[in-house]
Structures are given as C-alpha cells and as structure tokens.
C-alpha cells in the first residue's frame, strides 16, 4: 500500500462545557450566541491521524483531510483541525435550517462520495457527536462502502506495509483486539489519546492551508429527511445524565480486571452438601 490517505469528518457542536438550553418551541436546543467548538470525539480522531503520521509506522501518512458539513461557521472547527495537523479541509456548505442538520445517513452518503473522489483508504470518525448523540454515521459509512469497521477504538496500530491494522476497543471487563485490512473505517473513543492544544505557529500555518467549499449537490447527495423531531424536552435529561455519570464513574474507578474469585469449598458427602446449601440460603 503506497500511503495512508485519511479522512477525518468533524462536527461543530455546542461546547462540551456549556449547559444547553431547550428552545421555546421545544424543537431543539438554543444555539444562537452559544459557544461552539470541535466535537470532542472528533478531536480524538484528528489527534490519532496526526499521531499516525508522527509515529512513522510501516505506511506513510500521505494526506489528512478534515471535513465538516454545516453552516458558515464550520470553517472555525476546520481551522482548528488544521492547526492540530490536518493538511487540508472541505467545508460542505449545508444551510442551517434549525432542524439539527442532515441525518446520519445523508452524512454517510456524502462521506462515501468524498472517499471515492479523494481516494481515501482510512476514515477516522468520532464515535458520536455530543449534540445529536446518534452514533450511527461511522457504521453506516462502513456499510455503504463495504469496508471493514472497528468501532470505539482505544488503540490503533498499523502493523505492516500490506495495510494490516490492529484496533483495540474496550468491552465489559477488558479489552478486545481486532485485526482488519485497509481500507477501513474506525470510530474513536475517549481513551484513544489525549488531544493536543494547537501551538501558535501551527494556528498561523493553518490559516494558509487549503480549505475548499463544496455543496451536497457537488457530491451527488440529496438532503432527504426520514425522521421528524416531534419534541425536545428537558425534564428527563438531568436524571439520565446522572445515571450515565454513575455508570461511567463505576467503570472509571473499577479495576481493569474483575476481582479474583474465591476458591470453592469441598464437602464430604450428600449431607454436607445439603447442609452447606441450607447455610447459604439456597434451600
């Protein structure tokens, strides 16, 4: 394989530290005048692409293309991505209609077109955007392309020049290591890396990197909607947030391995067994 051509789709979302407010019409959250930044999971993807280049593995990184679909402010996050190390960027201009933007399938089709057009052989996506929380785009894209995919990666390693890739992801009670061959789709998870802050010289350089504007029509994709948002309400979220926080806290503070099992006891005969079972309340 000649070189890695990486596509990193990124999304501009309400900053992770801001508490979103539901709009009056209950159709979505208030976005006007709210601080936005690069989706944290996408930050991980960009960082990983840049690290793949810096690691100088068996396959050289030839190109890192950042892409974002959305309104006129999208270039902000693309500049951030380029300041972190992406080589160039596409801004797919999608007018803001206050409907939460294109659905995952539309985005996946758009990415499919870009992959073909730009001869991409690795797509690194955040596992989800923290605004819509759909977590579908990566999987749909792999399906459309017919490529192997590994989701929620916590480690990515290019093993050889033939394009063998090993990806680790965290599962209940441990880690699972998967092997696949390029071209492929990888979605990224929290513990993959620690994204860097862009340095001033790199911020300045990013201003001069190419940023191309395109439309969905240029890529032959139509923005059709299959879903309609009926209502967005706030009441349940704090509870759900709290539950997810608890679960996460448990995972974070639990040891990587489950506690060791205690050895079983031996019984002499049937009477002993019955006695033991009674003692444990099983009978």
């Amino acid at each position, binding site marked *: 394989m000649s070189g890695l051509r990486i596509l990193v789709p990124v999304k501009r979302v309400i900053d992770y530290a801001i*508490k*979103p407010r539901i709009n009056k019409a209950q159709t979505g959250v208030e976005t006007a005048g709210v*601080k936005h930044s690069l989706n944290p999971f996408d930050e991980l993807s960009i960082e990983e692409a840049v690290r793949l280049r810096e690691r100088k593995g068996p396959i050289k990184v030839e190109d890192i293309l950042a892409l974002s679909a959305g309104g006129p402010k999208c270039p902000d996050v693309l500049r951030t991505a380029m300041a972190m190390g992406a080589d160039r960027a596409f801004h797919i201009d999608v007018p803001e209609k206050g409907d939460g933007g294109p659905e995952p399938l539309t985005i996946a089709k758009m990415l499919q077109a870009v992959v073909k057009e730009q001869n991409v052989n690795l797509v690194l996506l955040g596992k989800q955007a*923290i605004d819509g929380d759909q977590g579908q785009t990566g999987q749909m894209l792999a399906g459309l392309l017919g490529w192997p995919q590994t989701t929620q990666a916590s480690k990515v390693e290019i093993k050889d020049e033939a394009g063998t890739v090993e990806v680790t992801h965290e599962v209940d009670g441990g880690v699972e290591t998967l092997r696949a061959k390029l071209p492929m789709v990888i979605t990224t998870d929290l513990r993959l890396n620690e994204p860097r802050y862009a340095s*001033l010289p790199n*911020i*300045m350089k990013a201003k001069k990197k190419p940023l191309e504007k395109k439309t969905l029509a240029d890529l032959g994709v139509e923005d059709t909607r299959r879903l309609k948002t009926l209502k967005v309400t706030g009441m349940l979220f704090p509870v759900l947030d709290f539950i997810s926080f608890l679960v996460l806290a448990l995972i974070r503070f639990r040891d990587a391995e489950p506690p060791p099992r205690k050895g079983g006891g031996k019984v002499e005969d049937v009477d002993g067994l019955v006695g033991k079972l009674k003692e444990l309340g099983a009978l």
Partner: protein
Amino acid sequence: MYRTQLQKALRLPRVSQHHARTVPLQARAAFSTSGRRDIMGMTGFTEEQLTVREAISHICSKFPNTYWQERDQEEKDPKEFHAALAKDGWLGIALPESLGGAGLGISEATMMMQTITQSGAGMAGAQSIHANVYATQPLAKFGSKEQLETTIPNIINGTWRTCFGVTEPNTGLETLKLKTLARKTDDGYSITGQKIWITCAQVASKMILLARTTPLEEVKKTSEGLSMFCIDIDRENPGLDLRKIKKMGGRAVDANEVFFDNYKIPANTLIGGENEGFKIILHGMNAERCLLAGEALGLGYAALEKASQYARDRVVFGRPIGQNQGVAHPLADAFMKLEAAKLATYHAARLYDTNDSSVPFHEIGVACNSAKYLAAEAAFTACERAVLAHGGMGYAMEYDVERYMRECFVPRIAPVSREMILNYVSEKVLELPRSY
C-alpha cells in the same frame, strides 16, 4: 444529549494529569464546567483576537486560581506557566515570522495578556512573560543578524528568559537622565550603575539594558548618548548584584534592584548604533502601554466576575445580596467603565498596528497613554468594589479578589504614572503650558 456529566468525566483526567505535576489536589475542583458566558462584550474583535483568546484560555485553564494563590504566598516563580506558553510558541506572538514568531500585532498580544490576567493569573502571570513579549520588539527591529539568530529563537522557545533594564532609582520618569554608564573598553564595555524594579531578573538569563555611553555633561540634547544592549545576566560575576524587593502584589514574580560594578560585556551586545538607544526604546513604549492596558482590563473583569458570582450566591435577609441596588449598582457601574476602557485599549492597539503615515505619531501616543490610564483606573474601581461586595470574604485569600486588588496598583503606577499621562495630554492635546 448526555453531554454534561459524561463530558465532565471524560475531560477531567486530561486536566488533572497536568495538575498532578503543578498544583495540589484541591485545584481539581477549580476546573469549571459550568461554562458561564463571558461578562465582557465579545463583539467587534477580529478573528485573530478571538483565536488567541480561545487558545490562551485553554492553556490558562491548567493554572487555576489556587496555583496563583500558592505562588503568590510562597513567592515562587510560576516557571511552569512560562514554560507552557513558550512550548506552544506564544512568546513569539508579536515577533516577525522570519525570526520564528507568529507575525501578529500588538492588538493580538494585548488580547493574550488580557486573557492571561483574566484567567486568574493576574499581574503575576502577565509579568512572568511580559518582557519577553515587548522588550524583544526593539531587538527584533534593530538587532544585528547574529543577535537575532542566537537570541530571538531561544527567547521564543523559552530557553532564555529576558528582563528589561531601564528604570533607575533616581530617574524613574526622567528616563533621559539615567546614569548607568557603559564605558568603552578594548573589547567591549564596562557597566557601572544601578537599576531598580527589574522584573524577573532572578530567573532571566538576558537583559535588554539601556545605559549611557556618553556622559550627560557631554551631550547637547538629553536624548542623546544612550545605548541599548542585550546582555547576559551572569549571577556568578562579582560585578553584578541582584536584590529582590519585597512588594505588595504579584509576589510570585520577582522585582529587583540591580547593581553593576565594572560589569564587563562584549562589544557585540550593542543593539543598533552607539548613542541611538533612546530612539530605539521609544519604539517599544507605546506597545508596552497597550499590553499593560490589556492586563489591567483582564484583572478588572476577573474581579467583577467574582463579585457578581458572589452577589448572586450570597444570601442575606432571605435574598441574594446582588438584589440590593447598593451592591448591584457599583458593580454595574464598574462594568461600564471596563467596557469603555476596553474600547479605548483595542482602539489604541489597532492604531499602533496600523503603522502607516496617515496616523500622526502623537495621536498613537495619546491613544496608548489614554488606554493605559483608563484601563488601570477601571480595573482599580472593579477590584475595589469586588472586595467590598464580598464583605469580609473579600479580605480572605481564598476568594482571590484581595490578590487582584493588590495587583491592580501595578498598571496604575507603571510604566508611567497617572499624573505624567495627564501632563502629556494637557500639553500635547490641549496645548496647555508644560508644568515640569
């Protein structure tokens, strides 16, 4: 949308790892995820200024108020902070790209300094890098090729820190009367004299020094006979003595009396031509006023944010104290003063950066001096009212406003007093007879 708690959980480790090295445990709680909006009006800034603000805020978030409280109390240099800014190239913000800088202007550098003080770092944070940003300006403009190639990259990457040696005990405002003498020797100069209020001299390895190469008695005009040098600070040399000054605020950063007694320096330390020092130093003065104005603004907004937070939270007689107009109005008034000073400051910085002959030089001087004056006074008002709004707690170190209060005297006094600015405006703008 499960962002809040999840995001907190996912981001905290990234921050606390840094904390583990630099600050005590309690600092972790200082990482705020409440995401209150900025009280300062953010419209009208350029894209570059906003980029700078965002990036600097990120770095500063690793250095919470507790870090600065501790450094202030222990009088310990915030070297990690200087290193963090140097690592990402921020010290070269206003240096030309050809020398490894970012080629931005004073408008952006002012925003950087404001963001630093506003983060809670205060004047201590600003002063730990201040001279590296502005004292390098004359060096970059007038230095020899050799000086630029050896010095500037090392200052930008943080290997060398620099300080600025101009002020003398008996010639605070009368820069032209300064007495420190650089006597010519066979292979360079020998310096004898005294400097005072030299910030960071204890930790710097370089000093941009202004000294007299022709004695005062022998020059026709007082602005003649001064020369500028970029010298090494060799603490082992018996000809150099540094004495730390105990001071009111910004205690993390050292300020010193510096004594030179036949301190030998090589000839290649001279910046520009001999006896041209005053012309060279003038170049940096207006820039310094803008940076100081920005630093004052940041301090004022930081104090006001703390005060309004406290006035919302503190309940007396069954309601938040901020509901009382006696508490609210002084804060609202302080806010308006800061906003006005902000406009003056960024206007001055823009004029300085315009750098075309359509703007008369004295207009830049008036704008930069006015900005420094207004911002320092607005910051003082905000800090004082913030302390008072906190009541007894305003006197406690834990609430930070007392630290801001102590520090806000720096931009009121330095680099030029309020009175001298008023004199300058009276004379240059109002055409009133000179009083001194």
